[in-house]
């Protein structure tokens, strides 16, 4: 039988209502699938610098842009690069984190006046 490469325990109980706790439903969703709420995941990747700043109209479809964002995210955060919403990736996405973006143009960069 097929076994996952690795198993990661999600950081918080997904049954409880915390920010990003609903993202567990995207586990192993494949490119081309449409799931209600996927746009929120896209907003997450947009917020932290993995989707272009100019993108603001997000659909619920797992499209090429999201796959690219997932790949960048995995690479940036030292995760296995699969381009998929695997357990390691979703676990990291759902983890509480700093609000500063991960890429250059999405950081809280303001000079003092």
């Amino acid at each position, binding site marked *: 039988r097929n076994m996952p490469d690795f198993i990661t325990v999600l950081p918080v109980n997904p049954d409880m209502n915390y920010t990003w706790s609903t993202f567990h439903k995207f586990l192993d969703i494949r490119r081309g699938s449409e799931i209600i709420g996927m746009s929120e995941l896209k907003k997450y990747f947009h917020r932290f610098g993995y989707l272009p700043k100019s993108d603001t109209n997000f659909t619920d479809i797992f499209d090429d842009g999201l796959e690219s964002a997932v790949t960048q995210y995995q690479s940036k955060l030292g995760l296995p690069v699969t381009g998929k919403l695997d357990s390691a990736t979703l676990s990291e996405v759902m983890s509480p984190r700093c609000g500063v973006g*991960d890429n250059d143009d999405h950081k809280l960069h303001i000079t003092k006046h």
Partner: protein
Amino acid sequence: YTYFPGRPSWGRTTPLMLTYAFSSSDFIDYIEISDIRAVFNRAFTRWASVIPVNFTETQDYKHADIKIGFYSKDHGDGEPFDGVLGVLAHAFSPKSGRFHLDAAETWSVDFESEKSRVAIDLESVATHEIGHVLGLGHSSVKEAVMYPSLNPRSKKVDLRLDDVNGVQVLYGSNPNFSLTSFLQSETSPNKSFG
């Protein structure tokens, strides 16, 4: 390690003197202020041990270089907080000095007394955000303080080589810093990373 665009810093005056202050109005009341001050003192000292920077607490919030406060939801800087978990805190690049923590979190200075499953270690977050205040961006090294995520009820307060290398590019090395001693302590079996 990474930096903010343009690699801003507070400059290389040696030693660099920076002051920090806590907001009297935007704060939490369920942890003793003395405990919070001790946590931040340890966090600032950790960074000061590797670079030639002195951090001093001041009561003069208005003129402090680094202004620390706890805020909820939209607090006027264009980066609203989001309630329990999610985003825990954020800090701005040099020389803004703004250091904001999400008041909605269950902040903890001691997991023995704070039993909440969603408790967040204040010292770990403080140490991370000071890295941003100094000019560091996020690291890809999971063990580094500057890695962006932190799970509830976990601690990550010790600087790793990636953090040290990054900040020393900006400010140089503290004359009392010994890389050999640091590496020995980093590989110590007694060191815990939460």
